[in-house]
């Protein structure tokens, strides 16, 4: 039962995301979507994703472009950010998020995994990635896989909460 709700909720969220009619408010993208089945995740503002103002400026730019439906420009800004901090897991997460918006679910999952490979024990970004993998699997029609991913997301979110991670310590 719980899972059906999760799937419905996420599908709705995805549809809304795909439509992209409304430009996003100034609230950041990553982690902003409420997790399924009662997992609440504190949104991570762009300014907490990097200590580098250049990277934050590019994240803001990508967000604006994506909000306006300019996916290619958003892609370009994220890649520029990645050239500056190629091992920042949040940036790979954002790129994965963009691939979801572009409907490239398999690539989104791979990029989220790649983000995980840089995340170390940073449960905040791990939670966000597993939630994203879950969303992509829902879109691919893999509900069992999605369920598993959401479960892992919930576990990491729990750890994140427990750790009272104030922001992040970048690798």
């Amino acid at each position, binding site marked *: 039962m719980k899972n059906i709700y999760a799937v419905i909720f996420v599908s709705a969220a995805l549809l809304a995301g795909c439509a992209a009619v409304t430009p996003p408010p100034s609230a950041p993208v990553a982690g902003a979507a409420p997790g399924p089945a009662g997992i609440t995740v504190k949104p991570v503002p762009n300014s907490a994703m990097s200590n*580098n*103002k*250049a990277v*934050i*400026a*590019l994240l803001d730019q990508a967000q604006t472009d994506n909000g306006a439906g300019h996916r*290619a*420009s958003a*892609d*370009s*800004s994220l*890649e*520029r950010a*990645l*050239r*500056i901090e*190629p*091992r920042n897991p949040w940036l790979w997460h954002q*790129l994965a998020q963009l691939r979801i918006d572009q409907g490239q679910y398999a*690539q989104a999952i*791979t*990029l989220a*995994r*790649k983000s995980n*490979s*840089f*995340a*170390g*024990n940073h449960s905040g970004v791990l939670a966000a990635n597993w939630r994203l993998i879950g969303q992509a699997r829902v879109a691919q029609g893999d509900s069992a896989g999605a369920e598993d991913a959401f479960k892992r997301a919930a576990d990491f979110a729990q750890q994140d909460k427990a750790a009272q991670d104030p922001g992040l310590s970048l*690798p």
Partner: protein
Amino acid sequence: MKLPSLFRNKPLTQSRFRGPLRLVALLLLLVFSGYIYYLDVTIRDAFDGRKFALPARVYGRDLEVYPGLNLTRAQFLGEIKTLGYHENPEPDRPATYKNTLNGFDFTTRDFVFGDGPQPSQHLRVEFADGKVSLLQVRGSTDTDLPLLRMEPPLIGGIYPGHNEDRELVRLDQVPKMLTAALIATEDRKFYTHWGIDPRGIARALYKTVTGQRIEGGSTLTQQLVKNFFLTPERTLTRKANEVLMALLLELHYSKDEILETYLNEVFLGQDANRAIHGFGLASYFYFDRPLNRLEPQEIAMLVGMVKGPTVYDPRRHPELALKRRNVVLKEMAGQSVITQAQFVEARRKPLGVVKRAPSGTSPYPAFLQFVHLQLQRDYREEDLRSEGLRIFTTLDPFVQHEAEHALASRLTALERSHRLPANSLEGAVVVSTTQTGEIQAMVGGRDARYAGFNRAIDAQRQIGSLIKPIIYLTALEDPQHYTLITPLDDSPLVWSQPGTPDWKPNNYDRKFHGQVQLRTALAESYNVATARLGISLGVQGILDKLPLFGIQQQPPPFASSLLGAFGLSPVEVSQLYQTFADGGFRTPLRAIRTIVTADGKTLQRFPLNVEPVAPPGPVYLLTAALQGVVREGTAQSLSNWLPADLNVAGKTGTTDDLRDSWFAGYTGDRVAVVWVGRDDNTSTGLTGSSGAMTVWGEMMKNIQPVPLNPEMPDNVEMVNVGPVTGLRYDIGCKSGMMLPFIKGSAPTEISPCDTSAADVTAAKADAKAAAGKQDKGKKNWFQRLFN
């Protein structure tokens, strides 16, 4: 009587020959018309052939500048000089700069990037401790800027015609001053005449006939015709043809079309075997700047050269060139092309010609060739050469120069130290970014400017031991049977396979080492232990993995392939190691980021695409083993170039008879592959570590590499084990070393910390051999443990 008869005879003759004469006249007319037609076709062919085709422009990476970036003042200066900025005490015009106490004040150009335009900005940058310490927009109040994207350097073009080097310009891109100066000096009636200037021709004829020096007297149209069919001969027939063709040109084309073609066609100098045609290219050749950024005296110099590019060559005959320039300047002032004040100022200035001309179609022919090959997959050649595409690539001129320099200087040094004939060694280098797979540098030979055989992509050379990591990765993917300390058998091996002679692999040192730990077999590159491991894992299974790692060709299905007895190009090897370097994620190596049409629309992007091809845990273990190669194995002497705390992972490769010397390795941010060998595939006398690795080290030390400290995957744990015995010790036991294991695969039973064991000797020897390296390595493992 004679006369009348004569008179009488004439009409007779006329009547007798009237028919044939007419025929002859008709024939002559026909022949003449045919000839005119022939000339017409010839000249139109020539003209249309040269008509405006915009070559594809290829740009290098754009330098992103931000506070905190590792960038020295000298590097930044190098960048803006490459971009053609020039010094100016008031650097407020685009592409000017001024030295300040800690950096530069400068002004960027407008530039249309792949994702939109960026206007010119007045900026200030400062440096401290090899980093950018300040970046500001200059204004009434200076404001901090988080990020600046510099214009990307133009690194070449894909040109129309037979690889002619052109810098084609459209008439509206040419400074008005230049066309005005050209018309003022060469052909004042250009816009009114029919292609020829009868008075000029008459004057020229008169002077020729009276034995004075042969003068041009040609209109621009005639000069254009002359340029199409450049030959030294100067005959009346030629002149007549020229006149006819000039008239024909004017019949078919507008004045502006003719002028535009002239501007792109006129011969303006010679660079070895390369002819410099057109003002656009000449502007780069003499001033290293585009036409629209030339100053009046520079324009005057180029216009002056039209009269005699050899005589007025500013590099060979600077005095003559200066004199001629000033004549043109005077003409320009006389015709009000410039003001009197401009004239006075311009006259005082030196020629200002750059010392060494930028040579060839591109300074980076190997990279450009790679870009061209990638483009040919998706685009028609004629579109590449004519549609004015703008291609944004990944080449980093700084890394490229360091790679070129390292290769050239090390090969010379190696020839000297190994008493090899000079210029007998060749080599290739490929450098890419680890996480984004972008090719930053590609060197196709020790003469990096030579646009010939590109060894980075065309040389298929046996890779030897570079293949081994694939075998070890395959083993480590089976943690039930293989860990980094699993003993491997390095005793004599004979392998029989139907259809091939028995295979008896040998070690490089011609010895057998008995039981060795898996990590040691890789670190010391033991062939026999590796071959036995590969055979037990299955030859075909291992070779079948290559396509996953981006290697398209299939090596022969023999066990000898396990020791790299097949050829790959350096760029293919780069792809293989990129995947190891990036935790098992394969990112196809990219040289092109974006292709934009002439009017600024994005035609194609090459977004980052990533494929997971190997599980992160085993790849992490493999990287640890490849770090062992550098820390204590065949690549130990890399420490002569690079500090131990970079934790470089790498592998040497040496083939039979020392024909090929390879090194492939990675840091935290870059993957680089170097090949050294001879084009005739004979012995070099070099091993992987005595040859290619030294090039690798020389290059890396100059490009500020980031240490390699990969994140430990969650299914990996660090365990303290004996370096020889493989026994598990307590964390505190100094006889052991920390090694990564897939969880559940490490020895479980903890042995007492025995300070008399073989491990201690090994550890001590290690410590002696590698001084502080080992400790630093250990510290890192510890750090990661508690991360």
